């Protein structure tokens, strides 16, 4: 992470353990060079990650659009490891549609969803994962909509790798990150996160007391078990579902060969002699 002077998160923000763990996973556990990956964010506090990593390729796009941009990047150069870090507002409100379709498209990108139940950057409005009754500057009477849960939605949209963790347990988070990045295909890691400025209720203590690991007996390849765990009111952590699949870039007729679009573009030549064939 950059020095604190250039990082604008609030002191004690739940994003700090996340960025630190991500850097450790990339550099130490996976021994990747910063050349090999790119960090993509939408807009929000979480989405500032590419700006705060010590050094990385990064794409800091539009609010809600992290996933389409990341997908475009991966399709252009599927040799890059593409990591998306963004907030629950970004991914499930403004970007809710892209979330569903990124899951079903199964392009090999890794999504880390920072779930703090609020819009941090815009000063504490309810995010789609807010609990019913949360009061905000707009929802005086309390939120009435049913909260969305990224895990439930991802399973409904056909996810093949879906895990939940919390930054309140850095070891577990680290493990989940490693597994997700190592998975071949689209992966979701839902990270339950604190926001000391706007979410006073769900602090580290709350997460520790209100979450528990999936039982040893949980079968990662059993979709019904995954669904049951996802819809369980008790908040479980771990890999809910993991089955092999063929990611988009490995089944696409053009990308199958292994050559990236970028490389193809660099090698491109086309002259008048090639024209008759085109017409």
């Amino acid at each position, binding site marked *: 992470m950059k020095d604190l002077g250039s990082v604008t998160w609030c002191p004690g923000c739940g994003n700090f353990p996340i960025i630190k763990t991500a850097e450790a996973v990339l550099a130490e556990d996976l021994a990747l060079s910063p050349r090999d990956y790119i960090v993509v964010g939408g807009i929000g506090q979480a989405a500032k990650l590419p700006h705060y990593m010590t*050094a990385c390729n990064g*794409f800091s796009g539009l609010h809600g659009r992290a996933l389409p941009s990341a997908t475009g990047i991966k399709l*252009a*150069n599927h040799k890059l490891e593409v990591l998306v870090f963004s907030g629950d507002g970004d991914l499930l409100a403004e970007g809710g549609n892209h979330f569903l379709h990124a899951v079903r498209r199964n392009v090999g990108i890794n999504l880390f969803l920072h779930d703090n139940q609020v819009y941090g950057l815009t000063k504490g409005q309810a995010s789609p994962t807010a609990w019913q009754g949360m009061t905000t500057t707009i929802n005086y009477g309390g939120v009435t909509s049913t909260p969305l849960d990224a895990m439930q939605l991802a399973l409904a949209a056909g996810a093949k790798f879906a895990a939940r963790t919390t930054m309140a347990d850095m070891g577990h988070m680290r493990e989940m990150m490693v597994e997700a990045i190592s998975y071949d295909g689209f992966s979701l890691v839902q990270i339950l996160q604190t926001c000391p400025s706007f979410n006073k209720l769900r602090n580290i203590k709350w997460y520790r007391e209100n979450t528990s690991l999936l039982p040893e007996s949980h079968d990662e390849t059993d979709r019904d078990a995954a669904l049951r765990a996802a819809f369980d009111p008790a908040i479980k952590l771990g890999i809910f579902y993991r089955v092999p699949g063929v990611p988009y870039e490995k089944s696409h007729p*053009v990308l199958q060969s292994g050559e990236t679009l970028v490389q193809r573009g660099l090698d491109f030549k086309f002259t008048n002699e090639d024209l008759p064939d085109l017409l």
Partner: protein
Amino acid sequence: MANSLVVRFSGEQGQGVQSVAAITAQYFAGRGYGVLAVNDYASRIAGGYSYSQIRVSTGPARSVTKGADIAFAISPAGIASDLDTLQKGTALFAEAAKVKAEHRPAVINVPLSELLDAQERRGINTFYVGMLLALTNQPLDPLVEMLEKRFGKKGGDVVAANVVIARKGYDFAKPMTDLHQDLDVPREVLPTVVKTGSQAIALGAIAAGVTFHAGYPMAPSTAVMNTLAGLSKRYGIVVEQAEDEIAAINLAIGASSAGARAMTATSGGGLALMSEAISLAGVAETPLVIVNVQRPGPATGLPTKTAQGDLHMVQYIGHGEFTRAILTPGNAAEAFVAGQKAFYLAEKYQIPVFILSDQHLGDSLWSSDPWKVHPEYQERFLKLESTSAEPAVYPRYSLQEGCISPRAIPGFTNDLTLTDSHTHDEFGHITEDPVLSAAMVHKLIDKRGLVASDMSLPERFAVEDSTTVLVSFGSCRGVVRDACEALRATGLSVGHVHFSEVYPLPEVAVREALGEARLITIECNATGQFARLLRGEYGVKADEHVLKYNGRPFYVDELTAELRGRLTP
């Protein structure tokens, strides 16, 4: 003997109006004629009334008339609509027995039920093409060859059956000598390309090296994506149907930022949805080609009709200020060039480039002289050498070399690249510094002058000696030129200035190109957007405006008459 004819085929959606028009166009183009087939179709899958209007000419075919010289009604249900637009004197062929009694006197009977058996009646279109050849004194053999190519795959039987039908049509019309409308023979038969505007844009993009297209279906733009998809495997292009237009353009921006030549295509409402992302491409300095095949708005408007109503939107789409370029090709040949040049401008200046097409350009089939590839438009302007020995973030938005910073590609060198949507410093990091922010604004808007120097000035026709000059852009090119020539032929002093690239142009050069004559702008919209662009951007005030906004392109007879009224006191 005529040097030009307009032929119509009409029928219901799904009856093959557009494909019979395509065969006819191909046939005449192959014989050395200029052709232009203009399609007017309903927004539905089956039924309704659609027609195609085909100009065949010994010279270039640039426009069609409202009516036609010869018309074939595939579905007798459409006769009333045909009669609405056809002038008196058109040879309108239909099966009289199936036509409402009141319309029977207006049609020339083709007793299809008697001439063809039940099986053959599926080939009415081919029968009509056969008739057309007889009526215009053309040989049947080239059509036979075409049928062989077309139906060859389905087997010899199918070919033979179709040839029989074509010949029946030919033989049926041959004796109707008083209805024949012989065409002059073109001076020489040159190789020619017959494509729609949308195909031409897609093919141009391929010739420029596009590798990524993301889009969302929307009439009339879908043909661009379909063309690319059809050739995607052969040319190694990923063509992705996105979940919506916002995804489409953000996919394309992502791909471009990673180093692919990327594009998207859509129509009015889809483009409106892309507004925010276009602003992203602007500030992130990510090259991007965006095709807008216009249809009439606002909102859903007329999905399958034409308009030039999105010029202002394209001029100012997106919040904040950044440089863009707008190409407005006037026919398929220009569209093929625009498809290439757009990528060149986008990559050279790291900006979004618009190709502003419309349903008229995009769906019409245009014959052109052989196309040319522009290898100079394939240049990538990339930084492929590492700056440092170890991976390190490099100044993607360096202010060192004026407003164009060297662009590295993530993963290809040690230069770690941060593409950013905020106001940023040279490395792409968020900044709120007042001096740096202003410098970054400059970086974006100072490109305008550079881009302007790479744009083509308008084409001038007979301007010097004329007291009135017609001014057009985009798909009005051909019809205005034809009207201009027709008016000149009757002794009127009128010239034509046409813009196939509209923005940004050097202000002085535009003023000079337009000269001091009385200016009449001609556009397919209701508020005179091009005239306003000329006034707002280049300080040229047009004197009069001819506007059309009912979803149909200008017809040359209608436009000529309108202009004649204005030019003769």
